[in-house]
């Protein structure tokens, strides 16, 4: 563990901003909200933040990106793939967002070899930070993501007068090789551990089941369509929960034509499974027409389907969905605990031999 003086750290960030070819972005505050944005000066950095509105996902899977461009030449179209890359240094990523990025890497790089995502990840340096404040909605402690030993190139922990730096990769060590640092004292190493323990405590709200039992709970609760419909009753299908989630990655592909149709481009854009037409097909059929089914799908995707495919529980407990849901119905912790209580009352909690997955239908439209 390295120790860097505060003034040296500020100089280090200012030097990156001035001299590094890459964009330097970080957690900052604008208009009363925290967000990841470009830094003009080290003083823009707001490492005391609790939760940014959008997760750093936007730097690897942008809300909108061009996949290819085409232009008519005579009867033919010339089609060219394009890759819009902005190499970046991202400063201040919290442990739960580091976990989310690792999960996304598994899906987009290991499983899908998605060159657009992979190239952006390769050309990005991630500097994590130990949270100094935790939002009321965050329950990363319950999801075992309040601390992380991997997923960062550097990890910063602010102590009283200095900043502790843990190096997670060669990229990280290269970044600070010319920065004056010293090795941490025993007391400083212990102080960092204490900071991390405090985050776990602050970010624990009380999940009433073992985290690893979440896929079992959701699987057992799949058929409880009245439960899902009741919880989704106030849902406006606005997809704020999808948009702010660090592990939501559904997208749509749209073709955008220039006026005159001689040239155009294909874009990949964020999409959300809570939108009414997300699972609609041609000729009017919609496989998740009812709100309750869409709401259920989102929770199962987080806690069951991704787990089945990749072994990860895709809810990292950041709490953004709960915080930004206008009707206030998206807090996953409340839903998990409610579902457990609901199944308990029915005597159908797993262990009492109930994990059927055959569905009953929701009849009401919308």
């Amino acid at each position, binding site marked *: 563990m390295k120790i860097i003086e505060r003034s040296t750290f500020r100089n280090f960030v200012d030097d990156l901003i001035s001299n590094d070819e890459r964009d330097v972005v970080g957690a900052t505050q604008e208009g009363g909200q925290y967000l990841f944005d470009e830094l003009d000066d080290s003083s823009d950095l707001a490492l005391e933040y609790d939760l940014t509105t959008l997760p750093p996902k936007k730097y690897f899977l942008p809300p909108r990106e061009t996949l290819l461009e085409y232009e008519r030449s005579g009867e033919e179209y010339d089609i060219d793939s394009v890759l819009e890359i902005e190499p970046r240094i991202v400063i201040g990523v919290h442990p739960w967002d580091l976990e989310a990025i690792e999960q996304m890497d598994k899906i987009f790089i290991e499983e899908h070899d998605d*060159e657009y995502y992979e190239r952006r990840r390769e050309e990005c340096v991630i500097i994590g930070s130990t949270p100094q404040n935790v939002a009321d909605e965050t329950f990363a402690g319950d999801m075992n993501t309040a601390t992380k030993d991997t997923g960062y190139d550097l990890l910063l922990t602010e102590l009283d007068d200095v900043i502790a730096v843990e190096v997670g990769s060669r990229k990280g060590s290269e970044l600070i090789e010319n920065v004056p640092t010293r090795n941490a004292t025993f007391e400083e190493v212990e102080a960092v551990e204490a900071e991390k323990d405090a985050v776990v405590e602050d970010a624990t709200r009380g999940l009433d089941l073992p985290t690893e039992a979440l896929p079992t709970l959701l699987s057992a609760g799949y058929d409880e369509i009245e439960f899902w419909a009741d919880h989704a009753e106030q849902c406006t299908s606005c997809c704020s929960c999808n948009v702010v989630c660090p592990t939501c990655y559904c997208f749509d592909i749209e073709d955008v034509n220039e006026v005159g149709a001689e040239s155009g481009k294909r874009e990949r854009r964020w999409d959300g499974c809570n939108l009414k037409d997300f699972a609609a097909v041609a000729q009017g059929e919609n496989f998740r027409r009812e709100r309750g089914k869409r709401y259920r799908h989102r929770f199962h995707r987080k806690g069951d389907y991704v787990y089945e495919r990749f072994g990860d529980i895709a809810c990292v407990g950041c709490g953004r969905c709960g915080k930004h849901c206008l009707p206030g119905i998206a807090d996953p912790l409340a839903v998990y605990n409610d579902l457990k209580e609901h199944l308990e009352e029915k005597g159908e909690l797993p262990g009492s031999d109930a994990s059927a*997955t055959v569905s009953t239908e929701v009849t009401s439209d919308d």
Partner: protein
Amino acid sequence: MTEMGGYGGSGQVPMQQRLAMEPEPATITDIRRYTEKDALFEIDLEERDELGHGPGEFVQVFVPGIGEAPISIASAPEEGDTFDLVIREVGNVTGAIHDMEPGDKLGIRGPYGKGWGPERLKGQDLLFVAGGIGLPPTRSMIEKALANREDYGDITILYGTTSPNDILHDEDIQRWRDRDDVEFRMTVDEVPEGTEWDGNVGVITTIIPPVDIDPETTTAMICGPPVMYQFVLEELDEKGLPEENILVSLERRMRCAVGLCGHCQMNDLYVCKDGPVFEYPVVKKRGEAL
């Protein structure tokens, strides 16, 4: 203090290799119109000899400036270097394709998905149950089996359409009817006034009971509108056909076609990648399947 090397700056980087999302150029070489809304488009890839597909798989068809649509491949690989798509005009992309003429260009991505699996069907009796626009995806397997006739047992084709005016692949139907090693039966839901029809009238389930199949050696393949599956499955159950001897091909809104974008997700499965053809026991357990 710190100096960074090796980064090529920002902005658009030209790609060295074609990405998975890039369509390849293709030409429409023939069009056969079946109904007001349905037509067969014969497609020739410009940069390679053949598509290299299996029956039941699909491609993404790209019309520059309009978009993409997932379309099942209607022809068998044995039928030549071109391939056929039967396209119903239901939206912008399919509408634009319908406005095209032989010689016009479009883009193709694929083939994608898991199809009927002709290898695992070898030695089996084949029962095809197709409704409406579900005939073209089954046709690819029908023609595969007919091109390798000795590999398969009895072949029975059941086809239902809304009315006699909606019949697809009429030239193939005549050929199937004429063969003595194929049993072909069809039905229409209704006969509009002034339309000639001397065949069966009724939904597709009405022509299942008379069919003579051996449940031990038969694999049924179902493709049709979503409403059809449950009723057909009930009739096949009546016939004593085991669930593991039933394959279904499902329709979803595939956008990326590689199991990532989420639009075609059916519980934990991606129809574009894990399907579109599934063994019935696999989809039976999944509430969002049928």
